[in-house]
């Protein structure tokens, strides 16, 4: 009995790796969600930031309100709200899914790319990320400074023109450090979809633990997967940043 309770760690890790197909499919799920959330969040966040800065009194307030509310409430609550919204409003949700199955080293891997719950996960993560990205964009836009906008206008550029040609090119370059922060750490938050049933890495980890009972090894491996992914993304973004340097920006 005592020998059973503290089994050799190496043996643990190997046992968990037997289920590598689950780990892989879960990881792909997280990355899939991450890619969507980051991209949609980028577009939406940029729009939000521009509206907040240049949109006129009403829209600016709306944008600011959205950003502050999303940033002031937990992601989990937002997720639940979105998940149960159709239910509360009595909208019928049909069951549908977009699945992909493929074979790797004679193990069948099935990934559900689109599903009612996956879609909600994507929406929740995107809306959330957009608010945080909007804050970073705002900082970058403000840092360009009103003087250059004045100069652009004095040449005869319209407001839109000055945003397009003067503010955005600089803001987008200046935001890279802060944005890389968000981009690198967003994968962490994709695990939240566990709560609504999406088969992400975390849920797969549960599955593995329920079979193997090697809880420490499993969770540690999951943690390491995230660590490595985040490091890679971080490093990649660092390289992008150093490649696009302009003196004085």
């Amino acid at each position, binding site marked *: 009995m005592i020998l059973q309770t503290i089994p050799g760690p190496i043996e643990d890790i190997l046992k968990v790796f037997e289920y590598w197909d689950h780990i892989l499919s879960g990881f792909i799920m997280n990355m899939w969600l991450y890619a969507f959330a980051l991209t949609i969040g980028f577009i939406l966040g940029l729009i939000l930031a521009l509206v907040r800065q240049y949109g006129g009194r009403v829209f600016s307030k709306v944008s600011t309100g959205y950003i502050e509310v999303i940033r002031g409430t937990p992601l989990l609550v937002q997720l639940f709200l979105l998940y149960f919204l159709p239910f509360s409003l009595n909208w019928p949700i049909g069951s549908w899914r977009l699945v992909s199955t493929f074979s790797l080293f004679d193990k069948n891997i099935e990934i559900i790319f689109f599903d009612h719950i996956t879609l909600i996960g994507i929406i929740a993560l995107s809306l959330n990320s957009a608010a945080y990205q909007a804050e970073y964009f705002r900082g970058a836009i403000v840092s360009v400074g009103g*003087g*250059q906008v004045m100069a652009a206008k004095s040449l*005869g550029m319209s407001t839109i023109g000055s945003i397009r040609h003067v503010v955005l090119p600089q803001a987008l370059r200046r935001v890279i450090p802060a944005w890389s922060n968000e981009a690198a750490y967003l994968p962490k938050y994709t695990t939240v979809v566990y709560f609504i049933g999406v088969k992400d890495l975390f849920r797969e980890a549960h599955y593995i633990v329920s079979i193997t009972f090697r809880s420490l090894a499993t969770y540690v491996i999951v943690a390491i997967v995230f660590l490595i992914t985040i490091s890679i993304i971080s490093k990649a973004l660092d390289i992008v940043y150093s490649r696009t340097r302009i003196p004085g*920006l």
Partner: protein
Amino acid sequence: MKIHDVWKSYENLEVLKGISFDVEEKEVKVIFGPSGSGKSTLLRCINMLNPPDKGEIYLRGQNLMSSDIDINLMRSRIGMVFQQFNLFSHLKAVDNVSIGLRRVKGMKKEDAYEKALQALKNVRMDAWANHYPAELSGGQQQRVGIARALAMEPDVILFDEPTSALDPELIGEVLQVMLDIAKSGTTMIVVTHEMGFARAVASEMIFLDKGLMIERGTPEHFFTSPQSERVKKFLNQLEVLYGSHEQLLQFKDKEEL
């Protein structure tokens, strides 16, 4: 250009109180006065970056205050040079000058580039055409700023204390460029402390204090027999601080000749 009875207030403070004057072609108007007198505000009223509350501003007969005017088009005919240079930091010098030509006047890339280089040549910055603003000294940046305004071939160029943010040894090069421009017949409205410059090329000088035009006249008038006490005191202060600039300018002047 006609500036007629312009009033402007910020919150409860009346910054400009009934300013009126005309500017003819090829004229160089120098506006000077203590800080807080509303000089910068006046300039920004003229090109409508900060429209006045009351009054009218006419450019070649067109009222800039009226609502059926394309203000962007009007602004492209009024150039401005800023105290803080305000160069576009993400663009090289030549692009800084050409962007107005391309995006506002719709010129083709090659033509705009040619024109930009020419403008840079006029301010003697053509060797630095491919440098970014961060790589240039203050005086060089300002000269690019002047080129940027010049390239648009405006009806009038506004100068907002163009040398006030410069280190002393860099002021000369900018003043020299401004001198050349003035001599070549550009219409200029200049806000500055540089009395040497004013003495050399100003057609009329206006003293502004607390939003009112206190005195106006030719440079000779101001430097030989100013009327108001305020003006006399101010000129004396300037002499003490900036006396050396006179020599700077004359020296350069003689060099040119």
